[in-house]
């Protein structure tokens, strides 16, 4: 295993978030009753003709630019010919000879280092319909037929299943930043196929590759590639040969298997689409796209490190989710201890969101409420421990932290007399532990602190309690 290296290239199909389909005026929305978003054009009726939706082209160019690709000056389309019932015209309008853009790259972080993964091409095409197989009959839903699809093909620069996972995460993050797609693998708005081969370390020639399909999550991609790499190495080690073929991933069993239908060598007979005349991509449109390009995750991560002095890890976690990073920045304008904001977002807040299946946009937590609460901790009005429950109260009620603290009487006890009494009581009630402490067991004091906190319902300042306990026990019982 150790003396092999893995070579992976990924092909991602992305549904672009346009209002209408790519060559007709039908709605591109997901989830409508079957065959309600159709017209003669997307049904491929005789005599109908395609007209390019410029919005789809713009979104495609946006992706290309975000992936550092060169956008073609002239836009051309080609026909990809093959018969399939979900393909209304029995050809797909795609881009072949001259794609929308070529030669870009994507940066991933692997083993703490940056790595460039080349992007071969990004091109625009139309999606197919969907086959629904029932008993004894098959039905077709053409709602999806003609929705805009962007194909993003990577160079075989990916050297491990883990890197493939990083590539997809980084890609998804960029796509979310530029807001071009829902990127939902389960709903099919992002699909991924992988090409993988292995070779002995030091060899230059590529091994025979297989194509892996049917992976419905990033984790499934990683698992499928892990299995496939192992299978290929095992086959070669036992003197076997790799067959160039398409294999399907069975996620339940975690294995790849050859596609059962007989693999036909497809000749797609690409040729220029005569119904769409080539045209020059308007320079001002391209300029506008460039100007409106938001800050992308990689530069933002670097800025978070320098501007907010966040660690590499914290910055990476925050920027990987645009909404989370935006939320962090909103808070940072109100509260200047950035590391503390980051800790809360990545700690309690993320945990709560995960538990309840929420995203930051859906979470009922105004940035000024979070920073207001952090202020109260700093001022000693509440303890950090109280803050943890207060946070959940804010989220549940939507009320501001100050009113909640007042309403529930959560203010920290600053009156030393009240704490004095609690300390004295605890020492009296827990003589054995107190003895241990005085006998040299320093840790024992923490058990006493806990008891005092319980007596004061968590409202005492724990630092203060420790001081007072030590003070009381110094002179002996």
């Amino acid at each position, binding site marked *: 295993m150790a003396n092999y290296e893995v070579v992976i290239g990924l092909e991602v199909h992305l549904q672009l978030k346009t209002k209408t389909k790519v060559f007709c005026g039908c709605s591109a929305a997901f989830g409508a009753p079957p065959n309600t978003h159709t017209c003669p054009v997307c*049904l491929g009726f005789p*005599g109908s003709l395609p007209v390019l939706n410029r919005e789809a082209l713009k979104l495609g160019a946006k992706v290309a630019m975000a992936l550092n690709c060169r956008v073609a000056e002239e836009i051309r389309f080609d026909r990809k010919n093959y*018969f399939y019932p979900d393909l209304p015209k029995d050809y797909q309008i795609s881009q072949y000879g001259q794609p929308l853009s070529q030669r870009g790259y994507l940066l991933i972080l692997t083993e703490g280092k940056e790595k460039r993964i080349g992007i071969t091409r990004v091109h625009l095409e139309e999606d197919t319909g969907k086959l629904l197989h029932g008993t004894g009959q098959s039905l077709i839903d053409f709602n999806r037929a003609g929705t805009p699809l962007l194909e993003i093909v990577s160079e075989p620069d990916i050297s491990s299943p883990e890197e493939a996972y990083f590539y997809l995460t980084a890609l998804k993050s960029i796509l979310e930043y530029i807001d071009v797609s829902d990127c939902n693998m389960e709903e099919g708005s992002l699909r991924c196929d992988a090409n993988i081969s292995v070779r002995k370390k030091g060899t230059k020639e590529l091994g025979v590759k297989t194509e892996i399909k049917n992976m419905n999550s990033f984790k499934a991609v990683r698992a499928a590639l892990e299995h496939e790499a192992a299978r290929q190495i095992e086959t070669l080690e036992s003197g076997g040969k790799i067959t160039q073929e398409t294999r399907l991933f069975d996620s339940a069993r975690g294995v790849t298997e050859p596609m059962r239908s007989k693999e036909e060598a497809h000749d797609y007979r690409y040729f220029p689409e005569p119904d769409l005349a080539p045209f020059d991509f308007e320079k001002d449109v391209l300029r506008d796209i460039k100007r409106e390009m938001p800050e992308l995750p990689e530069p933002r991560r670097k800025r978070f490190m320098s501007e907010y002095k966040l660690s590499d890890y914290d910055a990476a976690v925050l920027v990987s989710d645009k909404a989370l990073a935006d939320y962090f920045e909103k808070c940072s304008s109100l509260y200047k201890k950035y590391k503390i904001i980051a800790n809360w977002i990545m700690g309690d807040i993320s945990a709560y969101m995960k538990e309840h299946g929420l995203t930051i946009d859906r979470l009922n937590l105004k940035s000024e409420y979070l920073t207001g609460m952090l202020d109260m901790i700093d001022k000693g009005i509440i303890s950090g421990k109280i803050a943890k429950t207060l946070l959940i109260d804010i989220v549940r009620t939507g009320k501001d932290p100050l009113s909640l603290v007042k309403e529930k009487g959560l203010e920290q006890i600053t009156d030393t007399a009240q704490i004095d009494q609690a300390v004295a009581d605890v020492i009296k009630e827990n003589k054995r532990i107190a003895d241990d402490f005085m006998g040299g067991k320093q840790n024992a004091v923490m058990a006493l602190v806990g008891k005092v906190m319980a007596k004061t319902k968590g409202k005492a300042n724990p630092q203060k309690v420790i001081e007072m306990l030590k003070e009381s026990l110094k002179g002996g019982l």
Partner: protein
Amino acid sequence: MELNKLTAHGLKHLLDKGDISNIDICNDVLEAIEKKDKALNAIVHFDKEKAIEKSKASKGLPIFIKDNICVKDELTTCSSKILSGFRPPYNATVIEKLLKKDFVLMGKTNMDEFAFGSSTESSCYGPTKNPWDLERIPGGSSGGSAACVAADEAIFALGSDTGGSIRQPAALCGVVGLKPTYGRVSRYGLIAFASSLDQIGTLTKDVEDAALLLKTISGHDAMDSTSVPVSTPDYSLKIKDSIKGLRIGVPQEYFGQGLDSDVKDSVLKAIDKIGQLGAKCEKVSLPHTEYAVAVYYIVATAEASSNLARFDGVQYGLRAKDVKSIEEMYKKTRALGFGDEAKRRIILGTFALSSGYYDAYYLRALRVRTLIKKDFDEAFAKFDAILTPTSPTPAFKIGEKTQDPLTMYLSDIFTISANLAGIPGVSIPCGFTKENLPVGLQILGKPFDEETILKVAYNYEQATEWHKKRPDL
């Protein structure tokens, strides 16, 4: 009065004066159809009652439409079994334009299956006969449209022209056939044969009607990306200007071997006549003419092979019964639905696009196509129009060429180049052979300059009587 024998502009005049109603016209047209179409077989989808109903509901002129142009809810089959029963859910753009101007859509005319042919013999409804000689073909593929206009079963008709499919049958039937510039008329709703060559055009009894109908169907269409946003001139006025001083080229390549001597005589006389009318006719060379047929049969069949893929039995038209798999359904449906010529062209086109052959055939054909276009660009730098015969021969006998596709393909030798170059062309009657078969003169023009070729055509027509001759049926 036999109103069916009049031109559209003549009838308009009578309608405007209130001398006749459009019901009168409809009745005369119906009578002519009943009398003659059993013999001609020019019209394939026609419902008399419906036609009368439609006439009553409108004030406009009746028109016939080639069977490859979509009319909402009416049979549109490209004269192919594979589209049997197909009624499109929408109107072609040209149909919308006609309806807006109150035209009455009478019915559909016969054609070669999917416009694959030059004789209207490959129709699944059987061949259309030439009204000048019922043993002969009317030309094709718009043979039905040309024949019904020539036989006065119609006032005028729409056709489509991919390699001469309007001009050649117009020549062979003795009517006026106009193929506009590629991009002048929207192709939306024209069932595609070869998308980069197809263009809808007109078949009329005279040039003025061609001008009138062209004006009606022209204009930029947002539904067709290849339609060009240029304004539509008022042709009917401009064509009446004199042609004095016009520079006209006569390409020597069009007068060589294979040209029927009667056709040649008529065309040369017509050129002389046009010279007498004040135009300056000179020789010109279009050196790549000899490659046109070869280029055409690669480009056109390649596009056709892809355009016709959708006839797979899944959504509409014919579907083979008793099949066990999707592959079997495709194969049986297409084997059953397409005729021999359609199959031949699909196979040719598929081959030309196949990997390993693409560069040698399709790509090379595209390059030569550019050279042919350049020939015309250079010629039109010196000349305002080009005159040629429309067809190398007059109408041939039914069955004469069906067993020899290559000979059949040569019927389009003089018309194909205009489609490859995207330029407009019109064929007008210019004489008869010894056997009393009509001969056509082709006038080619600069892109979007239909005005000039119609002007030449009109001036010639006014100075001659050929267009007034009608077949005895």
